[in-house]
């Protein structure tokens, strides 16, 4: 019953080790991107550019309050997989109706005709890398936060 010191040392080192990520973060001052902030900034940035098509996908309430598009945040991955299968396997390249112009083709946004594609559609507006920045912002703000690493960029390239 004289092992008090050993036990205390063991307990303390256990606590230090398990809580070390928090201390390390505080010590190094890492500014973890808070995904909601980044998404809200993105929404504000895109709202400043009228006529962008995805606003149509947003609910009226969200648009009025300037909130991000909840449905897109929740379901974008399923939508992308669906598009991928439609384009690659069925050859169905018709753009979604909220991207169509009067003739049923993809709208021209920023000098590019929107395609049913991640890099040729979504990322025309939601630029992955902002000019002058080395870090991936919009996509990776959430992806990094929830620690997922989509393999899209193993093959697909973003200009």
């Amino acid at each position, binding site marked *: 019953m004289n092992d008090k010191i050993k036990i205390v040392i063991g307990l303390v080192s256990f606590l230090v080790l398990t809580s070390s990520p928090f201390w390390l973060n505080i010590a190094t001052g890492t500014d973890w991107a808070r995904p909601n902030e980044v998404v809200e900034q993105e929404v504000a940035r895109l709202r400043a550019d009228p006529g962008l098509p995805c606003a149509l996908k947003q609910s009226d309430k969200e648009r009025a309050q300037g909130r991000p598009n909840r449905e897109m945040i929740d379901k974008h991955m399923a939508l992308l997989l669906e598009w*991928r299968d439609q384009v690659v396997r069925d050859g169905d390249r018709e753009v979604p109706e909220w991207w169509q112009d009067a003739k049923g083709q993809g709208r021209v946004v920023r000098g590019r005709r929107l395609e049913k594609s991640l890099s*040729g559609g979504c990322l025309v507006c939601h630029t992955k890398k902002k000019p002058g920045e080395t870090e991936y912002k919009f996509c990776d703000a959430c992806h990094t936060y929830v620690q997922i690493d989509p*393999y899209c960029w193993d*093959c*697909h*390239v973003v200009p």
Partner: protein
Amino acid sequence: MDTTRRDFLKAAGFTVVSAGSVVSAFAGASSSEVSGGDVARWAMVVDLKRCQREAGCDKCWRACHTAHNVPDLDDPRHEIKWIWKAPFEHIFPGQVGEYGDLRRKELPAVVMCNHCDNPPCVKVCPTRATFRRDDGVVVMDPHRCIGCRYCIVGCPYGSRSFNFVDPWPDRKPPNMDYPTRMRGVVEKCTFCPERIVKGEVPYCVEACDKAGIGALTFGDISDPGSSVRKLVQSADRVVLRRKPELGTRPQVYYLV
């Protein structure tokens, strides 16, 4: 149990009848799909006379490989090819006998995926990553490819290449509008479906026409009025397909 024998038999009979009607409804639907006949059937015709005249020409495969981000790797074991040029003797082994035109034997001509009507690569693919579209184009879906390379073994034409290494480690391919591939997937010629849908011909055909050679013709062979159909039926030329005895029914035709 309050189910009487009579109730049970009634329910069983009803189940059998309704199951039967569902099955017949599905059977009707599938037979009507098969009979729909106005889908295009894309095919390519290679005029060997014109192609072999330009022995040193590399325009078709350069155009294709640049547009589709096919890397030019130094190690020949890692080579990736969608379309390339091979000596006549390799395309049609044994066609020129020892007393034939030996010069023609050596002359290179263009080869690519034959987009077979009965593609062995599709049959062996365990994940259906490679499949035949309704318009006959045999395409690869790299998302599903697990890199087993059965298709490479299955293809009798060597039309498929495997990415043994990361093709673009710096992520800077020549065409930023077209995806690259990753290490561990198979790739091949796709007859450019992204261009067909816009009513354009594949890159190789466009490059060949631009160079004024006109050796490649692309079109819908199921249409009796199409140029490919007319070429394939031309009376004054011998029309060959590669290894027809294998029953793959290739849709790349060679005018000799």
